[in-house]
């Protein structure tokens, strides 16, 4: 056995075998498949899935409700009540003319007598002889999109010129529907936040667990000259990857399930139950906004995972010297 520094070249006992092409494995310095790892990824996947479901649901309600709302808000009606002393048809024509003069009104369409009667049917029962009844008549006014015209002049004009007419801008209904929809959206948002908080919590616990489980590794890294920054980065990188993997998986499943549900419900749509569901929830086909939301949530979860784990690691390192 030779002393390496004096003999110039070492004479290892296994001969001068050439080095293998690459010794680099670039293995992470923090063990990847440690106890908490897989569990954390699974949990993040689950939470992302739930968050995506909640967000998707809220988005669905938001979309449908904004449709309803704009539909309803765009439709203003004038009701002309019959008055024995006046000709109802003349009154209706007059009201239509007044409405058409108002700026912002796209269209004003009187309901014919039959149409008006059909509207009353559910409330007065079928088979009623409407000839006996002085049925009030409706004028449906469609507003230009995005415009909210001032109705005071129209109201005033109607009052003066068509005493039996009244203008209904559905304000009450719009506000009712808004409250309902906003409540549902609010609940959805709260659930999403809850789930994100849960994800953050889970990551915190998992990180602390992993740090405790890898205390040896942290110690060794310290001893061989790594500073806290280096160690925190190593841990954070690992957790960010885990988080990304978990959230991508969860979001993927959520997207898949939504698409599937969309197909299933579109085949249901003919059935009466399907009608009810669709009336309630809209069609299950989520808009591109919904998909975007799911992707955003997946990203948010991954980012939360990265940030939370970094903070946790820093705190752990500071606490434990």
């Amino acid at each position, binding site marked *: 056995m030779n002393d390496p520094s004096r003999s*110039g070249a070492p004479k290892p006992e296994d001969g001068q075998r050439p*080095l293998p092409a690459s010794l680099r494995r670039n293995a992470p310095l923090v063990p990847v498949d440690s106890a908490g790892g897989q569990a954390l990824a699974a949990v993040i996947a689950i939470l992302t899935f739930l968050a995506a479901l909640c967000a998707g649901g809220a988005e669905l309600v938001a979309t449908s409700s904004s449709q309803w709302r704009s539909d309803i808000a765009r439709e203003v009606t004038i009701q002309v009540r019959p008055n024995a002393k006046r000709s109802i048809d003349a009154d209706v024509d007059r009201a239509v003319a007044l409405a058409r003069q108002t700026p912002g009104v796209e269209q004003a369409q009187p309901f014919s007598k039959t149409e008006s009667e059909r509207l009353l049917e559910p409330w007065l029962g079928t088979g009623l002889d409407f000839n006996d009844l002085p049925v009030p008549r409706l004028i449906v006014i469609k507003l230009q999109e995005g415009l909210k015209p001032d109705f005071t002049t129209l109201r005033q004009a109607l009052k003066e010129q068509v005493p039996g007419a009244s203008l209904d801008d559905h304000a009450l209904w719009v506000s009712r529907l808004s409250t309902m929809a906003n409540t549902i959206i609010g609940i959805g948002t709260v659930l999403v936040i809850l789930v994100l908080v849960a994800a953050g919590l889970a990551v915190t616990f998992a990180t602390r667990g992993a740090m405790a489980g890898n205390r040896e590794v942290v110690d060794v890294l310290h001893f061989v000259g790594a500073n806290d920054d280096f160690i925190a980065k190593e841990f954070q990188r690992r957790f960010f990857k885990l988080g990304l993997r978990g959230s991508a998986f969860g979001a993927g499943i959520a997207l898949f399930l939504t698409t599937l549900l969309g197909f299933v419900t579109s085949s249901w749509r003919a059935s009466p139950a399907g009608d009810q569901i669709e009336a309630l929830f809209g069609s299950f086909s989520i808009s591109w906004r919904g998909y975007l939301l799911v992707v955003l949530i997946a990203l948010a979860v991954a980012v939360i995972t990265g940030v939370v784990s970094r903070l946790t690691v820093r705190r752990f390192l500071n606490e434990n010297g």
Partner: protein
Amino acid sequence: MVWGRVKAFFDNDFEESAAPSVHFENVGVRYGMGPEVLRDLTFSIEPNSFQFLTGPSGAGKTTLLRLILLSVKPTRGLISLFGEDVSRISKDDLTDLRRRMGVVFQDFRLLDHLTTYENVALPLRVQGKEEASYRNEVVELLRWVGLGDRMHMLPPVLSGGEKQRAAIARALIVRPDLLLADEPTGNVDPSLARRLLRLFIELNRLGTSVVIATHDFGLMDQLNVRRLVLGDGQLHIDE
């Protein structure tokens, strides 16, 4: 070998620095509420010196090394490393100090998920060095300690002695200013122990202060150097 080439540099470098590598003054330490494990330690480890640290099991050898490593705080007394008082050292300075020290732990402390090669290269990787710059050196050292064909194995499948040699290689690879080795030959046969001792001696020649904690009188008898003997918590020095 690279070591030969840098020898001259080290030789010049150490002539100037007169401060001892390690200096203890009236140091005492206790764990928690227990009795003092070590008390009234006053000694220095000079630059470029070689010494054994011995004493019965449980005497505090490992504790003394951990004091130098700053992984245990003394309950009283003063410790200075490379001329610097370490009582209120910042985290960055601590990292710098640790990069000047190499340690062989009694229980090896290899990272189980890295190969032997990666374990040995770890201190260099942590310092941000490029792999190309240290690769040959690491392989050379691994071959010297007889792990040339164990390079790509993970520590859990190494034999006890192989782990120990990997731990030694990891401590030597950075050519530290101070080497602390805790029972570095407890798991190898006497002839391999001699070979490893030669490695430590060579490192010492290149300018490193070496402290070897050991029970092995066979090993100590091979070298006529200073012995720090711990007993009953106190230090007794055999020059």
